[in-house]
Protein backbone atom coordinates (compact mmCIF):
# COMPACT_ATOMS: atom_id res chain seq x y z
CA UNK A 1 0.00 0.00 0.00
CA UNK A 2 1.40 3.44 -1.00
CA UNK A 3 0.28 5.45 2.00
CA UNK A 4 1.95 8.60 0.63
CA UNK A 5 -0.98 9.41 -1.64
CA UNK A 6 -3.84 8.55 0.68
CA UNK A 7 -5.53 11.69 1.98
CA UNK A 8 -8.83 12.06 3.83
CA UNK A 9 -11.08 11.53 0.80
CA UNK A 10 -9.26 8.35 -0.32
CA UNK A 11 -9.14 6.98 3.23
CA UNK A 12 -12.88 7.42 3.79
CA UNK A 13 -13.78 5.89 0.45
CA UNK A 14 -11.57 2.83 1.00
CA UNK A 15 -12.56 2.36 4.65
CA UNK A 16 -16.28 2.55 3.97
CA UNK A 17 -16.02 0.06 1.11
CA UNK A 18 -13.88 -2.41 3.00
CA UNK A 19 -13.47 -2.17 6.80
CA UNK A 20 -10.75 -4.85 6.67
CA UNK A 21 -8.64 -2.45 4.59
CA UNK A 22 -8.55 -0.19 7.67
CA UNK A 23 -6.41 -2.58 9.70
CA UNK A 24 -3.99 -2.92 6.79
CA UNK A 25 -3.84 0.88 6.46
CA UNK A 26 -3.16 1.34 10.18
CA UNK A 27 -0.47 -1.30 10.18
CA UNK A 28 1.34 0.45 7.29
CA UNK A 29 0.80 3.81 9.01
CA UNK A 30 2.28 2.71 12.35
CA UNK A 31 5.16 0.98 10.58
CA UNK A 32 5.92 4.24 8.78
CA UNK A 33 5.62 6.21 12.03
CA UNK A 34 8.19 3.84 13.56
CA UNK A 35 10.59 4.52 10.71
CA UNK A 36 10.09 8.23 10.11
CA UNK A 37 9.09 9.72 13.47
CA UNK A 38 12.51 9.38 15.15
CA UNK A 39 13.91 11.67 12.45
CA UNK A 40 11.09 14.22 12.50
CA UNK A 41 9.87 14.37 16.14
CA UNK A 42 6.41 15.51 15.12
CA UNK A 43 4.52 13.82 17.97
CA UNK A 44 4.69 14.38 21.72
CA UNK A 45 2.23 11.56 22.48
CA UNK A 46 1.06 8.72 20.22
CA UNK A 47 -2.14 6.71 20.59
CA UNK A 48 -1.86 3.07 21.56
CA UNK A 49 -1.70 1.29 18.14
CA UNK A 50 -3.86 -1.68 19.17
CA UNK A 51 -6.64 0.49 20.59
CA UNK A 52 -6.47 2.89 17.64
CA UNK A 53 -6.85 0.17 15.02
CA UNK A 54 -9.63 -1.54 16.99
CA UNK A 55 -11.61 1.72 17.23
CA UNK A 56 -10.98 2.50 13.58
CA UNK A 57 -12.14 -0.88 12.27
CA UNK A 58 -15.27 -0.78 14.43
CA UNK A 59 -15.98 2.72 13.23
CA UNK A 60 -15.58 1.70 9.57
CA UNK A 61 -17.90 -1.27 10.11
CA UNK A 62 -20.52 1.06 11.55
CA UNK A 63 -20.12 3.17 8.38
CA UNK A 64 -19.57 6.37 10.36
CA UNK A 65 -18.81 9.57 8.45
CA UNK A 66 -15.08 9.42 9.08
CA UNK A 67 -14.88 5.59 9.15
CA UNK A 68 -11.97 5.50 11.60
CA UNK A 69 -9.93 8.28 9.96
CA UNK A 70 -6.78 8.95 12.02
CA UNK A 71 -6.40 12.62 12.93
CA UNK A 72 -3.30 14.13 14.55
CA UNK A 73 -4.09 16.92 17.03
CA UNK A 74 -1.83 19.76 18.14
CA UNK A 75 -0.87 19.34 21.76
CA UNK A 76 -2.59 22.55 22.89
CA UNK A 77 -6.02 21.09 22.05
CA UNK A 78 -7.53 19.16 24.95
CA UNK A 79 -8.01 15.41 24.61
CA UNK A 80 -9.78 13.56 27.41
CA UNK A 81 -7.47 11.04 29.03
CA UNK A 82 -4.59 11.84 26.66
CA UNK A 83 -1.71 14.02 27.86
CA UNK A 84 -1.90 17.63 26.62
CA UNK A 85 1.33 19.50 27.35
CA UNK A 86 1.26 22.62 25.14
CA UNK A 87 4.93 21.76 24.49
CA UNK A 88 5.67 23.07 27.97
CA UNK A 89 7.37 21.70 31.06
CA UNK A 90 4.72 23.35 33.22
CA UNK A 91 2.01 21.03 31.76
CA UNK A 92 4.25 17.98 31.36
CA UNK A 93 1.94 15.86 33.55
CA UNK A 94 -1.42 17.34 32.50
CA UNK A 95 -4.13 14.94 31.35
CA UNK A 96 -7.34 16.86 30.54
CA UNK A 97 -10.64 15.67 32.03
CA UNK A 98 -12.55 16.64 28.85
CA UNK A 99 -12.31 16.81 25.06
CA UNK A 100 -12.14 20.04 23.08
CA UNK A 101 -15.35 20.45 21.06
CA UNK A 102 -13.43 19.92 17.78
CA UNK A 103 -11.95 16.68 19.14
CA UNK A 104 -15.34 15.54 20.40
CA UNK A 105 -16.85 16.18 16.96
CA UNK A 106 -14.13 14.08 15.30
CA UNK A 107 -14.74 11.21 17.74
CA UNK A 108 -18.53 11.44 17.39
CA UNK A 109 -18.19 11.16 13.61
CA UNK A 110 -16.02 8.07 13.90
CA UNK A 111 -12.54 9.60 13.70
CA UNK A 112 -9.62 8.36 15.82
CA UNK A 113 -7.12 10.64 17.59
CA UNK A 114 -3.77 9.34 16.34
CA UNK A 115 -1.59 11.42 18.61
CA UNK A 116 -0.69 14.84 19.94
CA UNK A 117 1.69 16.87 17.85
CA UNK A 118 4.65 19.00 18.80
CA UNK A 119 4.43 22.80 18.87
CA UNK A 120 6.24 25.88 20.03
CA UNK A 121 5.62 26.17 23.76
CA UNK A 122 2.03 27.44 24.23
CA UNK A 123 2.00 28.09 20.44
CA UNK A 124 4.43 30.98 20.93
CA UNK A 125 6.86 30.72 18.04
CA UNK A 126 7.14 30.21 14.32
CA UNK A 127 9.64 27.35 14.06
CA UNK A 128 8.62 24.66 16.64
CA UNK A 129 12.00 25.12 18.29
CA UNK A 130 10.70 26.46 21.61
CA UNK A 131 9.03 23.14 22.56
CA UNK A 132 10.22 21.59 25.83
CA UNK A 133 10.14 18.26 23.94
CA UNK A 134 12.78 19.24 21.39
CA UNK A 135 12.41 20.71 17.92
CA UNK A 136 10.44 19.12 15.06
CA UNK A 137 12.40 18.77 11.82
CA UNK A 138 11.25 19.59 8.31
CA UNK A 139 10.58 16.38 6.31
CA UNK A 140 11.97 18.08 3.18
CA UNK A 141 15.32 18.85 4.84
CA UNK A 142 16.03 17.51 8.30
CA UNK A 143 18.41 20.40 9.05
CA UNK A 144 15.58 22.86 8.67
CA UNK A 145 12.59 23.85 10.80
CA UNK A 146 9.04 22.88 9.76
CA UNK A 147 7.70 26.32 10.73
CA UNK A 148 5.36 26.83 13.62
CA UNK A 149 3.81 26.91 15.90
CA UNK A 150 1.83 23.92 14.53
CA UNK A 151 5.10 22.44 13.21
CA UNK A 152 4.35 18.91 14.43
CA UNK A 153 0.90 18.92 12.81
CA UNK A 154 2.36 20.09 9.47
CA UNK A 155 5.44 17.85 9.53
CA UNK A 156 3.34 14.75 10.35
CA UNK A 157 1.07 15.39 7.35
CA UNK A 158 4.00 16.24 5.04
CA UNK A 159 5.86 13.10 6.16
CA UNK A 160 2.71 11.04 5.56
CA UNK A 161 2.48 9.87 9.15
CA UNK A 162 -0.96 11.46 9.53
CA UNK A 163 -3.40 12.07 6.68
CA UNK A 164 -4.73 15.26 8.28
CA UNK A 165 -4.26 17.25 11.47
CA UNK A 166 -5.66 20.01 13.65
CA UNK A 167 -3.50 22.99 14.47
CA UNK A 168 -4.13 26.40 15.98
CA UNK A 169 -3.48 29.75 14.32
CA UNK A 170 -3.03 32.90 16.41
CA UNK A 171 -0.82 34.82 13.96
CA UNK A 172 -0.13 32.29 11.21
CA UNK A 173 0.66 29.13 13.17
CA UNK A 174 -1.24 26.85 10.77
CA UNK A 175 -0.31 28.58 7.51
CA UNK A 176 3.39 29.19 8.19
CA UNK A 177 4.24 25.50 8.78
CA UNK A 178 1.97 24.45 5.89
CA UNK A 179 4.00 26.76 3.65
CA UNK A 180 7.35 25.39 4.91
CA UNK A 181 6.28 21.74 4.51
CA UNK A 182 4.35 21.78 1.22
CA UNK A 183 0.95 21.11 2.83
CA UNK A 184 -2.35 22.99 2.79
CA UNK A 185 -3.06 25.00 5.95
CA UNK A 186 -6.42 26.67 6.57
CA UNK A 187 -7.43 29.14 9.27
CA UNK A 188 -11.19 29.72 9.12
CA UNK A 189 -13.00 32.90 10.11
CA UNK A 190 -12.69 33.53 13.85
CA UNK A 191 -15.51 31.56 15.48
CA UNK A 192 -16.17 29.00 12.72
CA UNK A 193 -14.49 26.24 14.78
CA UNK A 194 -15.20 26.33 18.52
CA UNK A 195 -12.23 27.26 20.73
CA UNK A 196 -13.62 25.28 23.68
CA UNK A 197 -10.74 23.09 24.84
CA UNK A 198 -8.10 24.99 22.85
CA UNK A 199 -5.69 26.07 25.56
CA UNK A 200 -5.72 29.86 25.29
CA UNK A 201 -2.76 31.94 24.14
CA UNK A 202 -4.38 35.16 22.80
CA UNK A 203 -8.14 34.63 22.85
CA UNK A 204 -9.18 37.38 20.44
CA UNK A 205 -6.79 36.00 17.78
CA UNK A 206 -6.71 32.21 18.46
CA UNK A 207 -8.50 29.93 16.01
CA UNK A 208 -8.30 26.18 15.42
CA UNK A 209 -7.30 25.34 11.85
CA UNK A 210 -6.71 22.30 9.65
CA UNK A 211 -3.60 21.01 7.86
CA UNK A 212 -3.97 18.47 5.05
CA UNK A 213 -2.65 17.34 1.69
CA UNK A 214 -5.39 18.98 -0.38
CA UNK A 215 -8.14 21.60 -0.22
CA UNK A 216 -10.68 18.80 -0.62
CA UNK A 217 -9.37 17.11 2.56
CA UNK A 218 -9.55 20.39 4.49
CA UNK A 219 -13.19 20.94 3.41
CA UNK A 220 -14.15 17.39 4.41
CA UNK A 221 -12.82 17.81 7.96
CA UNK A 222 -14.11 21.39 8.25
CA UNK A 223 -17.64 20.08 7.73
CA UNK A 224 -17.11 17.93 10.84
CA UNK A 225 -15.41 20.35 13.22
CA UNK A 226 -17.17 23.65 12.39
CA UNK A 227 -20.35 24.92 14.00
CA UNK A 228 -21.76 26.99 16.82
CA UNK A 229 -20.94 25.68 20.28
CA UNK A 230 -22.77 26.73 23.46
CA UNK A 231 -19.45 26.31 25.31
CA UNK A 232 -17.74 29.05 23.25
CA UNK A 233 -19.68 32.30 23.18
CA UNK A 234 -17.56 33.56 20.28
CA UNK A 235 -18.36 30.57 18.04
CA UNK A 236 -20.71 31.02 15.08
CA UNK A 237 -22.81 28.89 12.76
CA UNK A 238 -21.45 29.37 9.23
CA UNK A 239 -24.27 30.98 7.25
CA UNK A 240 -24.60 28.58 4.33
CA UNK A 241 -27.04 25.90 3.33
CA UNK A 242 -24.33 23.88 1.60
CA UNK A 243 -21.46 21.93 3.11
CA UNK A 244 -17.91 23.19 2.54
CA UNK A 245 -17.09 19.98 0.70
CA UNK A 246 -20.01 20.10 -1.74
CA UNK A 247 -19.47 23.82 -2.33
CA UNK A 248 -15.88 23.47 -3.50
CA UNK A 249 -16.94 20.67 -5.82
CA UNK A 250 -19.47 22.95 -7.50
CA UNK A 251 -18.51 22.55 -11.16
CA UNK A 252 -20.14 25.85 -12.17
CA UNK A 253 -17.42 27.99 -10.62
CA UNK A 254 -14.42 29.03 -12.66
CA UNK A 255 -11.27 30.95 -11.87
CA UNK A 256 -12.71 33.84 -13.88
CA UNK A 257 -15.49 34.19 -11.28
CA UNK A 258 -12.97 35.38 -8.69
CA UNK A 259 -11.01 38.59 -8.19
CA UNK A 260 -7.67 38.89 -6.42
CA UNK A 261 -5.33 41.68 -5.41
CA UNK A 262 -1.62 41.95 -4.68
CA UNK A 263 -0.75 44.41 -1.89
CA UNK A 264 2.67 45.87 -2.73
CA UNK A 265 3.75 46.11 0.96
CA UNK A 266 3.29 42.32 1.31
CA UNK A 267 5.86 41.69 -1.45
CA UNK A 268 8.59 43.86 0.07
CA UNK A 269 11.54 41.98 1.55
CA UNK A 270 10.39 38.68 0.03
CA UNK A 271 13.20 36.31 -0.92
CA UNK A 272 13.85 36.65 -4.70
CA UNK A 273 13.48 32.89 -5.31
CA UNK A 274 10.16 32.76 -3.43
CA UNK A 275 9.05 35.82 -5.38
CA UNK A 276 9.92 34.17 -8.72
CA UNK A 277 8.00 30.96 -7.91
CA UNK A 278 4.89 32.84 -6.78
CA UNK A 279 4.85 35.40 -9.58
CA UNK A 280 5.04 32.54 -12.12
CA UNK A 281 2.05 30.87 -10.44
CA UNK A 282 0.08 34.14 -10.39
CA UNK A 283 0.85 34.61 -14.11
CA UNK A 284 -0.56 31.14 -14.75
CA UNK A 285 -3.70 31.93 -12.77
CA UNK A 286 -4.19 35.17 -14.71
CA UNK A 287 -3.91 33.35 -18.01
CA UNK A 288 -6.60 30.98 -16.72
CA UNK A 289 -8.98 33.85 -16.11
CA UNK A 290 -8.28 35.16 -12.58
CA UNK A 291 -8.57 38.95 -12.49
CA UNK A 292 -5.58 40.31 -10.54
CA UNK A 293 -4.96 43.96 -9.61
CA UNK A 294 -2.24 45.58 -7.51
CA UNK A 295 -2.62 48.23 -4.80
CA UNK A 296 -0.76 49.74 -1.85
CA UNK A 297 -2.01 49.68 1.78
CA UNK A 298 0.57 51.69 3.75
CA UNK A 299 -1.12 50.91 7.12
CA UNK A 300 -0.30 47.22 6.71
CA UNK A 301 3.27 48.01 7.85
CA UNK A 302 1.80 48.47 11.36
CA UNK A 303 0.18 45.03 11.46
CA UNK A 304 3.16 43.11 12.89
CA UNK A 305 3.90 45.28 15.98
CA UNK A 306 0.13 45.70 16.54
CA UNK A 307 -0.34 41.93 16.47
CA UNK A 308 2.52 41.25 18.90
CA UNK A 309 1.35 43.91 21.38
CA UNK A 310 -2.17 42.44 21.50
CA UNK A 311 -0.95 38.82 21.56
CA UNK A 312 1.50 39.40 24.41
CA UNK A 313 -1.02 41.39 26.46
CA UNK A 314 -3.64 38.64 26.13
CA UNK A 315 -1.03 35.94 26.78
CA UNK A 316 0.07 37.53 30.05
CA UNK A 317 -3.51 37.35 31.25
CA UNK A 318 -4.33 33.86 29.90
CA UNK A 319 -1.18 32.26 31.27
CA UNK A 320 -1.76 33.66 34.77
CA UNK A 321 -3.62 30.40 35.50
CA UNK A 322 -0.39 28.36 35.62
CA UNK A 323 0.50 28.64 39.25
CA UNK A 324 1.50 25.09 40.17
CA UNK A 325 -1.71 24.64 42.14
CA UNK A 326 -4.61 22.96 40.34
CA UNK A 327 -2.80 21.37 37.39
CA UNK A 328 0.65 20.99 35.91
CA UNK A 329 3.91 20.66 37.81
CA UNK A 330 3.87 21.58 41.48
CA UNK A 331 5.94 21.50 44.64
CA UNK A 332 4.96 21.29 48.27
CA UNK A 333 3.71 24.85 48.87
CA UNK A 334 3.19 24.61 52.62
CA UNK A 335 4.90 27.34 54.56
CA UNK A 336 6.06 29.22 51.46
CA UNK A 337 4.92 32.76 50.63
CA UNK A 338 2.64 32.78 47.54
CA UNK A 339 4.59 35.30 45.47
CA UNK A 340 7.75 33.25 45.85
CA UNK A 341 5.94 29.95 45.22
CA UNK A 342 4.16 31.03 42.01
CA UNK A 343 7.22 32.90 40.72
CA UNK A 344 9.54 29.91 41.23
CA UNK A 345 7.15 27.38 39.66
CA UNK A 346 6.60 29.68 36.66
CA UNK A 347 10.32 30.42 36.46
CA UNK A 348 11.07 26.69 36.21
CA UNK A 349 8.01 25.69 34.19
CA UNK A 350 8.06 28.22 31.33
CA UNK A 351 10.70 28.44 28.61
CA UNK A 352 12.51 31.61 27.55
CA UNK A 353 10.13 32.79 24.80
CA UNK A 354 7.02 32.27 26.92
CA UNK A 355 8.62 34.21 29.79
CA UNK A 356 9.53 37.02 27.41
CA UNK A 357 5.96 37.31 26.15
CA UNK A 358 4.29 37.11 29.58
CA UNK A 359 6.69 39.67 31.06
CA UNK A 360 6.29 42.09 28.15
CA UNK A 361 2.52 41.56 28.15
CA UNK A 362 2.33 42.40 31.86
CA UNK A 363 4.50 45.46 31.25
CA UNK A 364 2.32 46.69 28.37
CA UNK A 365 -0.82 46.31 30.49
CA UNK A 366 0.69 48.06 33.52
CA UNK A 367 -0.10 51.61 34.64
CA UNK A 368 1.39 54.22 32.34
CA UNK A 369 1.77 51.93 29.32
CA UNK A 370 -1.75 50.56 28.81
CA UNK A 371 -3.00 53.48 26.69
CA UNK A 372 0.29 53.99 24.88
CA UNK A 373 0.62 50.40 23.68
CA UNK A 374 -2.38 48.13 24.28
CA UNK A 375 -5.20 50.60 23.64
CA UNK A 376 -3.38 52.11 20.69
CA UNK A 377 -2.84 48.65 19.17
CA UNK A 378 -6.59 47.96 19.47
CA UNK A 379 -7.30 51.22 17.64
CA UNK A 380 -4.91 50.27 14.84
CA UNK A 381 -6.63 46.90 14.72
CA UNK A 382 -9.94 48.65 13.95
CA UNK A 383 -8.28 50.89 11.37
CA UNK A 384 -6.75 47.86 9.63
CA UNK A 385 -10.03 45.99 9.68
CA UNK A 386 -11.92 48.91 8.15
CA UNK A 387 -9.26 49.41 5.49
CA UNK A 388 -9.01 45.71 4.59
CA UNK A 389 -12.74 45.01 4.48
CA UNK A 390 -12.99 47.86 1.93
CA UNK A 391 -10.11 46.41 -0.10
CA UNK A 392 -11.72 42.95 -0.10
CA UNK A 393 -15.01 44.47 -1.25
CA UNK A 394 -13.39 46.45 -4.06
CA UNK A 395 -10.67 44.07 -5.23
CA UNK A 396 -11.37 40.54 -3.93
CA UNK A 397 -9.03 38.20 -2.06
CA UNK A 398 -5.49 39.26 -1.17
CA UNK A 399 -2.88 36.94 -2.64
CA UNK A 400 0.60 37.02 -1.08
CA UNK A 401 3.48 34.80 -0.05
CA UNK A 402 2.59 32.87 3.15
CA UNK A 403 6.11 33.50 4.46
CA UNK A 404 8.77 35.82 3.03
CA UNK A 405 11.35 33.01 2.93
CA UNK A 406 11.53 29.20 2.70
CA UNK A 407 12.18 27.15 5.85
CA UNK A 408 15.23 28.44 7.76
CA UNK A 409 17.84 26.14 9.29
CA UNK A 410 17.41 24.96 12.87
CA UNK A 411 18.94 27.51 15.23
CA UNK A 412 19.08 30.24 12.60
CA UNK A 413 16.38 32.49 14.11
CA UNK A 414 15.75 31.16 17.59
CA UNK A 415 18.12 33.48 19.48
CA UNK A 416 16.80 36.64 17.90
CA UNK A 417 13.14 37.34 18.78
CA UNK A 418 12.76 40.03 16.12
CA UNK A 419 13.98 37.70 13.36
CA UNK A 420 11.51 35.12 14.64
CA UNK A 421 8.59 37.58 14.72
CA UNK A 422 9.41 38.76 11.16
CA UNK A 423 8.40 35.30 9.86
CA UNK A 424 4.78 36.23 10.67
CA UNK A 425 4.70 39.45 8.66
CA UNK A 426 2.37 38.06 5.97
CA UNK A 427 0.07 36.00 8.17
CA UNK A 428 -0.94 38.20 11.15
CA UNK A 429 -3.30 40.38 9.09
CA UNK A 430 -5.93 37.60 8.87
CA UNK A 431 -5.94 37.16 12.66
CA UNK A 432 -6.21 40.89 13.34
CA UNK A 433 -9.15 41.20 10.93
CA UNK A 434 -10.73 37.85 11.89
CA UNK A 435 -11.16 36.56 8.32
CA UNK A 436 -10.14 33.23 6.81
CA UNK A 437 -6.77 32.54 5.22
CA UNK A 438 -5.25 29.55 3.50
CA UNK A 439 -1.76 28.53 2.38
CA UNK A 440 -1.53 26.24 -0.65
CA UNK A 441 1.66 24.66 -2.01
CA UNK A 442 2.87 26.70 -4.99
CA UNK A 443 6.10 24.99 -5.93
CA UNK A 444 9.70 24.77 -4.73
CA UNK A 445 12.62 27.20 -4.36
CA UNK A 446 16.02 25.61 -3.81
CA UNK A 447 14.33 22.26 -3.15
CA UNK A 448 12.12 23.69 -0.39
CA UNK A 449 8.33 24.19 -0.53
CA UNK A 450 6.84 27.64 -1.16
CA UNK A 451 3.31 28.56 -0.05
CA UNK A 452 0.82 30.90 -1.70
CA UNK A 453 -1.50 32.61 0.76
CA UNK A 454 -5.07 33.75 0.13
CA UNK A 455 -6.66 36.06 2.72
CA UNK A 456 -10.25 37.29 2.74
CA UNK A 457 -12.95 39.08 4.75
CA UNK A 458 -14.78 37.35 7.63
CA UNK A 459 -17.19 34.64 6.42
CA UNK A 460 -15.67 34.30 2.95
CA UNK A 461 -14.48 30.77 3.86
CA UNK A 462 -16.67 29.01 1.31
CA UNK A 463 -15.55 31.18 -1.59
CA UNK A 464 -11.93 31.03 -0.45
CA UNK A 465 -11.90 27.24 -0.37
CA UNK A 466 -13.56 27.16 -3.79
CA UNK A 467 -10.88 29.49 -5.17
CA UNK A 468 -8.08 27.47 -3.53
CA UNK A 469 -9.57 24.30 -5.03
CA UNK A 470 -9.56 25.85 -8.53
CA UNK A 471 -5.96 27.02 -8.02
CA UNK A 472 -4.98 23.52 -6.95
CA UNK A 473 -6.56 22.14 -10.13
CA UNK A 474 -4.40 24.45 -12.22
CA UNK A 475 -1.04 24.32 -10.43
CA UNK A 476 -1.32 20.77 -9.09
CA UNK A 477 -1.93 19.46 -5.60
CA UNK A 478 0.78 19.03 -2.94
CA UNK A 479 -0.53 15.48 -2.54
CA UNK A 480 1.47 14.27 -5.52
CA UNK A 481 4.82 15.36 -4.03
CA UNK A 482 6.00 13.48 -0.94
CA UNK A 483 9.35 14.22 0.70
CA UNK A 484 12.01 11.51 0.23
CA UNK A 485 11.63 9.73 3.60
CA UNK A 486 11.20 6.21 4.90
Amino acid at each position, binding site marked *: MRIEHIGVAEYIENARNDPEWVSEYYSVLFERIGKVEPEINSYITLADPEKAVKNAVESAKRKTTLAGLPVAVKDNISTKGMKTTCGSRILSNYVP*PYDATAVRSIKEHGGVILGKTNLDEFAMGSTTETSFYGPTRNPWDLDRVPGGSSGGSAAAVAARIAPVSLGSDTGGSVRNPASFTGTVGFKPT*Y*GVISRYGLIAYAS*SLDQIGIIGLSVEDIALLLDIVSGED*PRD*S*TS*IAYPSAKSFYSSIKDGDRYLGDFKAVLVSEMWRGVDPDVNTVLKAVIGKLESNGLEVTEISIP*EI*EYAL*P*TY*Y*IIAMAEA*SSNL*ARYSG*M*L*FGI*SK*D*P*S*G*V*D*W*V*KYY*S*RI*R*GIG*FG*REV*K*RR*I*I*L*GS*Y*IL*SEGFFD*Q*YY*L*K*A*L*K*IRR*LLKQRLVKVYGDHGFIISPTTPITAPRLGENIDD*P*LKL*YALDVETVVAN*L*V*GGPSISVPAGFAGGLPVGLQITGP*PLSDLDMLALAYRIEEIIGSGKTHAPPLG
Partner: protein
Amino acid sequence: MLLGGKMGFDIERLMRLALIYVDEDEASRLVNDLKRIMDFFNKINSLDVESVDPLYHVLDASGKLRSDKPEPKDTIEWIRRHSRVKGDMVVGPRTIVEE
Protein backbone atom coordinates in the same frame (compact mmCIF):
# COMPACT_ATOMS: atom_id res chain seq x y z
CA MET B 1 17.66 46.30 40.06
CA LEU B 2 17.40 48.67 37.08
CA LEU B 3 18.85 47.22 33.90
CA GLY B 4 18.93 48.35 30.29
CA GLY B 5 20.55 51.81 30.17
CA LYS B 6 18.35 54.73 29.13
CA MET B 7 15.19 52.69 28.61
CA GLY B 8 15.52 51.08 32.00
CA PHE B 9 13.52 48.04 33.04
CA ASP B 10 13.11 47.49 36.75
CA ILE B 11 13.56 43.73 36.64
CA GLU B 12 12.28 43.23 40.20
CA ARG B 13 9.05 45.03 39.27
CA LEU B 14 8.69 43.00 36.06
CA MET B 15 9.21 39.72 37.94
CA ARG B 16 6.56 40.75 40.47
CA LEU B 17 4.10 41.86 37.76
CA ALA B 18 4.44 38.62 35.80
CA LEU B 19 5.03 36.38 38.85
CA ILE B 20 8.02 34.81 37.11
CA TYR B 21 11.42 34.43 38.75
CA VAL B 22 14.47 34.84 36.50
CA ASP B 23 18.03 34.57 37.73
CA GLU B 24 20.65 37.27 37.14
CA ASP B 25 22.15 35.75 33.99
CA GLU B 26 18.75 35.30 32.39
CA ALA B 27 17.69 38.79 33.53
CA SER B 28 20.42 40.66 31.68
CA ARG B 29 19.72 38.79 28.45
CA LEU B 30 15.99 39.24 28.92
CA VAL B 31 16.30 42.98 29.40
CA ASN B 32 18.35 43.26 26.23
CA ASP B 33 15.58 41.40 24.34
CA LEU B 34 12.85 43.51 25.93
CA LYS B 35 14.56 46.74 24.89
CA ARG B 36 14.79 45.61 21.28
CA ILE B 37 11.17 44.41 21.21
CA MET B 38 9.92 47.67 22.75
CA ASP B 39 11.84 49.63 20.07
CA PHE B 40 9.99 47.51 17.50
CA PHE B 41 6.65 48.21 19.25
CA ASN B 42 7.36 51.96 19.25
CA LYS B 43 6.77 51.97 15.49
CA ILE B 44 3.03 52.30 16.27
CA ASN B 45 3.69 55.75 17.80
CA SER B 46 4.08 57.22 14.32
CA LEU B 47 0.45 56.49 13.37
CA ASP B 48 -2.31 58.89 14.45
CA VAL B 49 -5.41 56.95 15.51
CA GLU B 50 -6.72 59.43 18.07
CA SER B 51 -10.25 59.44 16.61
CA VAL B 52 -10.50 55.65 16.10
CA ASP B 53 -12.30 53.43 18.63
CA PRO B 54 -10.45 50.37 19.93
CA LEU B 55 -11.53 47.00 18.46
CA TYR B 56 -11.92 44.36 21.19
CA HIS B 57 -13.86 41.71 19.22
CA VAL B 58 -13.52 41.02 15.51
CA LEU B 59 -17.07 39.76 15.13
CA ASP B 60 -20.14 41.62 16.30
CA ALA B 61 -21.79 38.38 17.35
CA SER B 62 -19.63 37.72 20.43
CA GLY B 63 -20.83 37.87 24.00
CA LYS B 64 -23.80 35.51 23.67
CA LEU B 65 -25.03 33.75 26.77
CA ARG B 66 -26.11 30.13 27.11
CA SER B 67 -29.08 29.06 29.17
CA ASP B 68 -28.46 29.11 32.90
CA LYS B 69 -28.94 25.39 33.49
CA PRO B 70 -26.59 23.33 35.62
CA GLU B 71 -24.62 20.63 33.75
CA PRO B 72 -22.85 17.66 35.27
CA LYS B 73 -19.13 18.32 35.59
CA ASP B 74 -16.43 16.13 37.03
CA THR B 75 -13.84 18.91 37.27
CA ILE B 76 -13.96 19.08 41.05
CA GLU B 77 -13.38 15.35 41.33
CA TRP B 78 -10.55 15.69 38.82
CA ILE B 79 -8.91 18.47 40.88
CA ARG B 80 -9.32 16.37 44.02
CA ARG B 81 -7.42 13.54 42.34
CA HIS B 82 -4.66 15.68 40.78
CA SER B 83 -3.86 18.35 43.35
CA ARG B 84 -2.44 18.44 46.86
CA VAL B 85 -5.60 18.29 48.98
CA LYS B 86 -6.34 18.26 52.67
CA GLY B 87 -9.93 17.24 53.33
CA ASP B 88 -11.99 19.31 50.91
CA MET B 89 -9.33 21.98 50.46
CA VAL B 90 -6.47 22.39 48.00
CA VAL B 91 -3.20 23.05 49.81
CA GLY B 92 -1.71 26.36 48.68
CA PRO B 93 1.13 28.67 49.65
CA ARG B 94 0.74 31.22 52.44
CA THR B 95 -1.13 34.36 51.38
CA ILE B 96 -0.29 36.37 54.51
CA VAL B 97 3.38 37.02 54.84
CA GLU B 98 5.21 38.76 57.64
CA GLU B 99 7.25 41.66 56.20
